[in-house]
């Protein structure tokens, strides 16, 4: 039974690492452009065969990633070339990277401050979750199935996931309001793309498991004390 438990915990670790790797791989372009290649991308676009645009080269120019939804799907505002059909197809964008020279203001300062705080909170929560999970695995392998420590660790793991979820949402909300106040795209509305609620569900689930263990321990103690 312990072997199966350990294998399942290892699978959980693999699944989480896989999820993070997929997330990073999907967004790696966004990360690299944001951090390193802003100006180079703009310069390359200026000299591209598709026609250069007059892009201001300013230190304040930065890439901003926005989630958008078309105001009217029937209005053909964008098109993309489809190699399969050999023609330009009507397209509606869902996400855009906008390079603009929005100047720093109080709102951006608040966002700039919120970003690292939320990121640190998120990373600390996930790190503490993993630490508690490792302690749980060690405890179970030491036959401490019904100890108070195990049930409190489950509860803390659940709280960590909920805190991580709240940190993600806080960052999204800050970014959304700041973006909306500084960027407005024709034919598109800027929308908030909140994190999926798996963390919240899993966090509440862990707290439920902790309560179950607490009840099981109480019944076990009562059963042990029944002569």
């Amino acid at each position, binding site marked *: 039974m312990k072997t199966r438990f350990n294998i399942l915990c290892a699978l959980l670790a693999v699944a989480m690492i896989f999820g993070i790797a997929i997330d990073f791989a999907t967004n790696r372009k966004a990360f690299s452009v944001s951090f390193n290649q802003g100006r180079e991308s703009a310069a390359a676009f200026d000299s591209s065969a598709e026609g250069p645009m007059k892009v201001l080269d300013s230190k304040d120019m930065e890439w901003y990633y926005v989630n958008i939804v078309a105001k009217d799907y029937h209005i053909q505002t964008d098109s993309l070339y489809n190699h399969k059909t050999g023609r330009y197809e009507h397209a509606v964008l869902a996400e855009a990277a906008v390079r603009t020279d929005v100047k720093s203001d109080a709102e951006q300062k608040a966002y700039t401050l919120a970003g690292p705080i939320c990121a640190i909170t998120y990373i600390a929560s996930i790190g503490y979750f993993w630490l508690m999970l490792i302690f749980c695995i060690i405890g179970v392998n030491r036959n401490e199935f019904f100890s108070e420590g195990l049930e409190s660790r489950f509860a803390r793991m659940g709280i960590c996931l909920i805190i991580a979820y709240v940190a993600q949402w806080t960052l999204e909300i800050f970014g959304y309001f700041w973006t909306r106040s500084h960027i407005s795209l024709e034919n598109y509305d800027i929308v908030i793309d909140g994190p999926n609620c798996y963390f919240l569900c899993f966090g509440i689930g862990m707290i439920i498991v902790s309560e179950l263990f607490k009840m099981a321990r109480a019944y076990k103690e009562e059963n042990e*004390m029944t002569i």
Partner: protein
Amino acid sequence: MPIIVNVDVMLAKRKMSSGELADKVGITAANLSILKTGKAKAVRFSTLAALCKALDCQPGDILEYQPGEEDEDEQ
């Protein structure tokens, strides 16, 4: 726990040791000790019947209710 288990009194009356009683009842010495020290949460009727049979007494001779004592768990 307001229920007091007076096994010691009956053991003394019957001049029996705890180990003997535990063997006759079919419980471990540890469980009998839990019973004697008042830490037990519940007693099965089968165990109570075996105790009465081994000690040749009635349940009322072993069990006593003292309403003044508060249950530690309820606190």
